[in-house]
């Protein structure tokens, strides 16, 4: 096993760890805001590690740049939908109380 293989595995493991943390947070946290907090922060870090692992595995700058673009758009989409959901949840709280 080369150093690259080792690094890819380590990065994948780190990515899965953060994904698992985000999922546990989603399932265990009590309200919308803290659930979104777990999802948006932990999952995006997890995706970052998986993307790094994939880029390293391919070992080409062009592919790495495309993977970086995918990661960037995933973060943008996740951030936008989290903002939308958080604002809706906040409004429902206000309407409910």
């Amino acid at each position, binding site marked *: 096993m080369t150093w690259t293989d080792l690094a890819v595995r380590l990065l994948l493991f780190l990515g899965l760890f953060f994904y698992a943390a985000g999922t546990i947070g989603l399932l265990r946290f009590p309200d919308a805001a803290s659930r979104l907090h777990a999802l948006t922060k932990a999952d995006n870090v997890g995706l970052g590690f998986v993307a790094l692992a994939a880029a390293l595995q391919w070992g080409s700058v062009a592919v790495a740049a495309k993977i970086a673009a995918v990661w960037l*758009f995933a973060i*943008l*989409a996740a951030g*936008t939908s989290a*903002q*939308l959901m958080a*604002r*809706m949840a906040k*409004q429902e709280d206000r309407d409910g109380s």
Partner: protein
Amino acid sequence: MTSAFELILCLMILGTACVALFMRDFLAAVAFFVVFGNLMGLAWLTLGAVNVALAEIAIGAGVTGVLLVLSRSRLLALGEEISCGPAKPWLRLGAAAACSVFTAVLAAAVLSIAPDDGLAPVIDGLMPLIGVENPVTGVLLAFRAYDTLLESFVLLGALVAIWSLAAPAAWPRAPAALRMTDPAALNVAGSFGRLLLPVALVMAAYLVWVGSDDPGGAFQGGTVLAGGFLFAAMGGAIGLPRSDNSALRWSLVAGPLVFLAIGLAGAALGRFLAYPEGTAKALIVTIEYSLALSIGVTLALLVAGPPATTETGL
């Protein structure tokens, strides 16, 4: 390792399909349907069918998901109750029987295709003649161009059918606005839509261009374009056009029209939809770009719905 991955993927596809069907909550069912579509895309990817995977994720999961969520909010706005009571036993049995027979016929048809049906070598031999390297594009736009030409007309026909549902007073106004009504939400969606639309334009142009040699093409590019239009419309960055807008009409018919014109020109030179030697790639790329524009605009308008008198948003 690979078969374990495929087995888990199959179980997840069946599981999400079941949850989407049996979920009573409409929104949750749609969420599972979108997950199902993405997993199906992954399955096509493991089969090596990247073109189908792209189309499945973009159209099957993406645009259809938006369409379903939009239908829900429009029905809610009309004051309709979205719920389904328990179905009658004979209806359930009938549906189960019909679906089982259909599945059996489909499985028999798929399994009857030999893994080596002798088509691939034939196409590989013909590919150098048309100058594109993606065999899927070769089949769609050269060897079976009839099918694709008719598909582009079917898509146009679907939009005409939806427009024909417009109330007489609403014609030819714009469809009901997709703009979000909540100001705070509109603010977020607006920034996202303004950022996404130009990126979607570039991405669509790229997908059509690489479609000649790598996975991609007019349908994939057109769907990305439609996604960009829809997000921009939801964020209020762009409005929806009136149905008698001439620029809109031209962009709707551009794809089928260019395709048909090139096909007829081929007929004048010899055979319908036959490309003169040496010009195949240039003509295919021309057709693909005009098709992508038409597909993008048509898909976005299919989701937006018929012209309406009301100015309601989401």
